């Protein structure tokens, strides 16, 4: 036994020396001398000479002047990579994607080909009938308890709105207590379904949403109010609208635009996705630089085509574009967008 322990110690010691000291140090020397750019994280500098990110790591872009990366389950936090872990069968995946689609989807055929669907979602929502029955919001909360609860918890102002509502309508809490005997006093999230049912009957065709209000002091404040239009409605109710209009021909959005990547840091988008965003980007730069929109679009189109490449030279997949590299090119060419 003593022999075994002594030999084991030798083996451990030698392995540590070889695997943890010699091996990484050799690679470190090769990396730092032969490939200093890659070995140090592929950092790139912006127009002002300061590093603005890594070519390998997605960073967020929100302005219309830039191409946007894929959505990120890690919120682009490169110190904590993450995927959504949502199963294909999980409704939360479909809901997340439907929410992203509602405001951007366009008709593909019919008399309205090319036009956005969003106004029709709002008009349908205001008519307040789903599958032939009244009160869309009540049906939504009933079908998707989890989403209704999540709405209440999404922002303190939402919870406060529900609390205020229940205070003004005490019969709701009383009914809840009757339906759930023996339970403690309900929190706002517990009342989400009854709240939305009541809200829907009092404000048919409306949904509680944040509205920016100018206070007398000059400050703006976001207040929750029943609204009949807006991104909230387009996003939240697109899935139900689609179920009511399953046959309508809609233009497909590139899948990578609405799906999250494995790492949450995928630095690329497909060429299809870049071309989908091209109109928005070109229009904005043309406005910023007061130039001919057609000309700017042509320039950016060329830029996109030039920077697109395919995995293994096209043997393994379709063309993709590095978002940061493309946006760096844009900012070099057109300068910094106005604040």
């Amino acid at each position, binding site marked *: 036994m003593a022999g075994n322990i002594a030999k084991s110690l030798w083996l451990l010691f030698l392995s540590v020396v070889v695997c943890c000291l010699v*091996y990484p140090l050799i690679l*470190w020397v090769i990396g730092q001398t032969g490939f200093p750019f890659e070995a140090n994280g592929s950092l790139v500098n912006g127009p002002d000479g300061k590093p*603005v990110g890594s070519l390998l*790591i997605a960073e967020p872009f929100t302005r219309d002047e830039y191409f946007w990366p894929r959505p990120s389950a890690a919120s682009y936090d490169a110190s904590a990579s993450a995927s959504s*872990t*949502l199963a294909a*069968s999980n409704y939360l995946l479909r809901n997340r994607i439907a929410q992203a689609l509602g405001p951007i989807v366009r008709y593909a055929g019919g008399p309205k080909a090319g036009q956005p669907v969003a106004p029709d979602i709002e008009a349908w929502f205001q008519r307040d009938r789903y599958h032939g029955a009244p009160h869309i919001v009540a049906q939504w909360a009933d079908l998707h308890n989890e989403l209704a609860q999540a709405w209440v918890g999404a922002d303190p102002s939402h919870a406060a709105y529900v609390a205020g509502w229940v205070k003004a309508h005490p019969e709701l809490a009383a009914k809840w207590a009757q339906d759930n005997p023996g339970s403690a006093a309900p929190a706002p999230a517990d009342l989400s379904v009854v709240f939305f049912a009541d809200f829907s009957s009092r404000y048919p065709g409306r949904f509680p949403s944040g509205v920016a209000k100018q206070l007398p002091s000059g400050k703006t404040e976001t207040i929750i109010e029943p609204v009949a239009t807006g991104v909230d409605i387009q996003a939240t109710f697109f899935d139900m609208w689609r179920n009511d*209009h399953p046959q309508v021909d809609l233009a497909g959005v590139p899948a990578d635009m609405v799906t999250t990547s494995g790492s949450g840091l995928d630095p690329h988008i497909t060429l299809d996705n870049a071309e989908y965003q091209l109109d928005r980007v070109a229009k904005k730069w043309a406005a910023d630089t007061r130039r001919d929109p057609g000309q700017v679009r042509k320039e950016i189109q060329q830029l996109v085509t030039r920077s697109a490449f395919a995995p*293994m030279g096209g043997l393994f997949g379709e063309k993709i574009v590095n978002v940061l590299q493309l*946006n760096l090119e844009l900012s070099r060419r057109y300068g910094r967008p106005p604040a």
Partner: protein
Amino acid sequence: MRSLQVWLLPASITLFTILVAFPLSRYMAWIMDGRYRAPRLLRWIEARLDSGAQDWKQYAVSLLVFNTLLFVYGYAVLALQPWMPLNPQHKGMLAPSTIFNSVASFMTNTNLQHYSGEVHLSNFSQVFFVILNQFVSASVGLCALTAIIRAFRGASRVGNYFVDMWRAVAYLFLPAALLLGVLFVSQGAPMTFASSYQVGTLEPNAMGTADNGQAKAQTLVVGPVAAEVPIMMLGTNGGGFYGMNEAHPYANPTAVSNFFVTFAMMVFPFALVLMYGRMLGRRRHSWVIFLVMLLLFVGTIGWAVWFDTLRGNPGLTAHQERALKIASAGRAGAATAVRLPATGGLPVDQHLGNLEGKELRFGTSAGATFGAVTVDVTCGAINCEQDSLNPLAGLSPMVGMWLNCIFGGKGVGMINLLLFLVIGVFLAGQMVGRTPEYLGRKIGAREMKLAVVALLVHPLLILGPSGLFAATAWGQKAEGNPGAHGFSEIVYQFSSASANNGSAFDGLGVTYGFNDNPNPSPEAVPWDLATGLVMLFSRYLPILAPMALAASLGLKKAAPSGLGTLRDDTFTFGCLLFGTIVIVGALLFMPVAALGPLAEHLGPIPFGG
């Protein structure tokens, strides 16, 4: 064009690996047989390690003693992390249960990670815990197989464990890892001892604004990534530098690097089968085994690619109205009728397949391919989110773990296959009424008992704990997805632990985090302990029992083959082996497959929410 791209990726990687596996198997047999002449320094080192020729029991004791020491060492390195160098962010100590789990996980070549690399480990721990274990644990299985081969050759002395370990670590894995390391750093994998950079963003304030009104920076975590990736793949370890493993662009920067990480995890398992034939002097026999494995291998990849890359995500597509009858569990004949309304298709262009959880730069079918390969060779690295695979595609990795011998891990896969082989030979012997033989030696009651015990460890350690956790809050509260998929997550976790694989359906809430984490996942501790124990049992029992089996078989007298001998290098034998693996595997795991991925596929989609 697209279907060419889709199939070219797995086909070219597989072919390339087979081509490399040939010469590699020759080199491995040459090294493990000790036919090389080492230079002086290496001779001196080998002399320090050599404790003389060992019989199988002494060999096994040495293996266990060294692994015990490795456990103590690993626990110490992780527990002392806050006081060790290369930790500028002052990362604290992991929860003790998580340290136990991680140490068990890495020493057993599993690399199931109940922590997230870039969040919880310092560069010191990455090098001195992770990289060390990845070299050493890969060698343990390889040594066990070598000992078994020597026993089959009829030797009562099966070699020296410590010398074998050194040969595997220093002469096999080290040179291969160095070559690949240079390739990966050239592709963009960081190789630095710095731990992170703060960089601004091109669009100021895109990351949000801090409390002091300044634009938030992006924190890029770097480190000796290019050193860890080669050995994590070559050793079929699979425990990544980053939480999202080989999906992370720093760990797997390009299509080229993805080609070679996939190759790297396949090449040693491929070569080991050929090495088995070479060292036994029965190359045709090893070819039959190789082809049976390859058939299953191609099957799992084809299945995953077919259902994940060539199909869109079914959560987004249109579904017809359906009426279901759900039988009552309580009363016979009673059923509840459920009507599922029709669902409209979302306008998403899914011609690239299911892209949720996939990276774009590797190629169209890279995620599904990798997802199947990583379980076949029990690597456990991932380059896409396994949890988000299409329901049927998710079955492919589970089958790989359940059979656990489609090339399998370092040595262990080949050992598992030997168990199926012995069972197959036994079944065939029963059918024709002859005493079963393998390598000309009669298989007796003792060998059969050992084979069956070793084979049953795996399903028992998967199905038992899965049932326990699925029935209690430990499992139910940890599920990250509703319905059948939540059950799949539990089964996957224990399959992964028992197969010493290490991949996961990541939605499961199993992370405790640092010891002082005020809000750990409430079910993390039972998961840490249960999977830790499963990994330990399912590692050492299926190594020790086959060693005993081989030793007892090897000592028997080899009978010359005659007319009635079941020849082990024929097409018929291949069919027998294939049939045994598929039927035994299917009988053991069909019920959980039906409750998990099959139920998810056939049941309502979308579900819950």
